[in-house]
């Protein structure tokens, strides 16, 4: 059993970085997808293959962004759980002191 040690400030920072990563990746997905749909000129094998590959990249970036968002949600939940437990503990001690 691993000892549980946690820095809530560090967890908050991780959440912030993950959110930033998520936003960046979402922008990448949108930008690349937007470029690939601006269809001009005649079709030929290279442009078709490029648009399909770029579409797949955009979708992939979108999925990674979603995964980053999920991780951020998990971390936020973990931070909140630790905080609640800490506050419960503090309340318990305070009520014990009052009952003396």
């Amino acid at each position: 059993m691993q000892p549980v040690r946690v820095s809530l400030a560090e967890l908050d920072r991780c959440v912030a970085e993950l959110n930033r990563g998520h936003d960046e990746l979402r922008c990448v997905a949108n930008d690349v997808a937007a470029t690939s749909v601006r269809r001009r000129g005649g079709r030929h094998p290279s442009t078709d293959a490029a648009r399909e590959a770029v579409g797949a990249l955009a979708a992939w970036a979108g999925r990674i962004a979603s995964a980053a968002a999920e991780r951020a949600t998990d971390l936020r939940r973990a931070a909140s759980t630790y905080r609640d437990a800490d506050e419960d503990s503090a309340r318990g001690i305070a009520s014990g002191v009052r009952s003396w």
Partner: protein
Amino acid sequence: MTSIAAIRSWDLFALNDIVAALDLGAERTDNAVDAVDRAVDDARIWTGAGALAQKRAIDDLVCRGRSLRNITDQVAESLGQIVADLVGLRDHVIRTVDDAVAQQLTVADSGQVISDTADPDVIDFHQSRITSAINDLQHSDEAGAQRLRLLHAAIDIVDDPDSAIARRNDRLISDLRTASPNRRRSVVTGLPPSEVTALIARAPELLGNLDGVPFDVRIAANRVAIRNARDDELDTRTPNLERVRRYDDMLRRDRTFLSFSPEGNGRMIELIGEMRPGIPGVAVLVPGTGTNLSSSGDVSRSARALSDATRGPVIVYVDGDLPQTLTGTALSRTSAGGILGGVPGAVGGFVAGLRDSAADPSFARDLAPRLVGFGRELDIEIAGRAPGTPTTVIGHSYGGAVVGSAEQLGLRADRLVYASSAGTGVFGGEWHNPAANVHRYSMTAPGDPIHLAQESPIPFGGDPDDRRGVTRLDTGNYSDGSPVSGIEGHYRYWDDPASTAFGNLVAVITGQTPTLYSNRLPDLPPRLR
């Protein structure tokens, strides 16, 4: 056949917009993934089972993000090359049509040349040019599309980490680290191209440096690794811009690398030229003291000249650290003063204080076994691409001691040249080159201070010029007629393809007869003996 009107309507420059968006996307992906990676790495005051599970999940996310960046870069680079090729070929089609029209011929939209009055030979000439230009364009277009489809297939593999192929690739990456070169080769060559591309996206730094991985896969992987190293350097607080320029140069389309690592002084094996049937020989050049990733440009230039002169591939081998100083002072290859002051000191003072200098044999000890392994890989590649082509391994200066040490450990090569070599090997004993009919040559200019190092059997094994079974060659003159001699005689002939010494290297590689040694001047002035 594609119509002329359709070809004219291709908006190839719109594809450049996609390349720019992909470049930017790869950079932003890189930054996002780095930020996430750093956040978790830095979160030290967070332990327990929950923390461990979260860290694993985030590591997986980071790994997927890096693969995304790698493939995005590959798509961007491929597309950029495709656009450049297609623009040139389409211009050529349009030029051929315009030329025909200028001759009063009619060119139908199908590309057919029509005229009731023109000379049939003139019509045939223009028809042939137009047809050939359109065919070249279509062929290049289809080949480009094929490359992009391959990358798309790799995206589909890496994008789904739970797929059977992706899970097998994960296991493969772990297995390849410990497998024998033969096993690696059989595994990698047995995979479909899309899976190999997916593997490269997952672990470019690994695949680019493993013996047993076929050369074309190593080359593709190292391109990704070099680009990542360049981006990492730019991301540092104070980027080394000289190194960034070096990476940019290494990413030139005509450069290919069989190994690469930015760690320490940097490692690389560069393949210059192409391995194909009909080449007269393949050469491997192991350079000397002062060579590292940043300074390897000089060596690569000389190797390119050697490749041009031999019309065959030349491989620059710097797959490990070489000493960077002669006696504790950093030098460049053209640091004549350093060489003058260095070698006598290095020979006379082989003491612990000279560790990491050119007097330290540990670099040769470390590099030699790797060179033996690389020699085996090279033989396998030659057997597949240019069967029967002889190999020549050239060791220059400290590189000569590396080559000699590798021969002592069993390096196989048909021909060897100990060029201005520090010695014949640090391990002592005989050479154990298993080639059936080995030809060994040496070449040391009169007055080259390396003669002082050669005179002592310790630590580098002694003088290759005097070794039984070694044919000493003439260093002769530079292209301006002056003799190759003295301190500059140690290195300057590498920059002079018309010099006798350079010509002798070409002759050995191509199987011609080199010029034998002629006693023009004493090896060393009497006062230095």
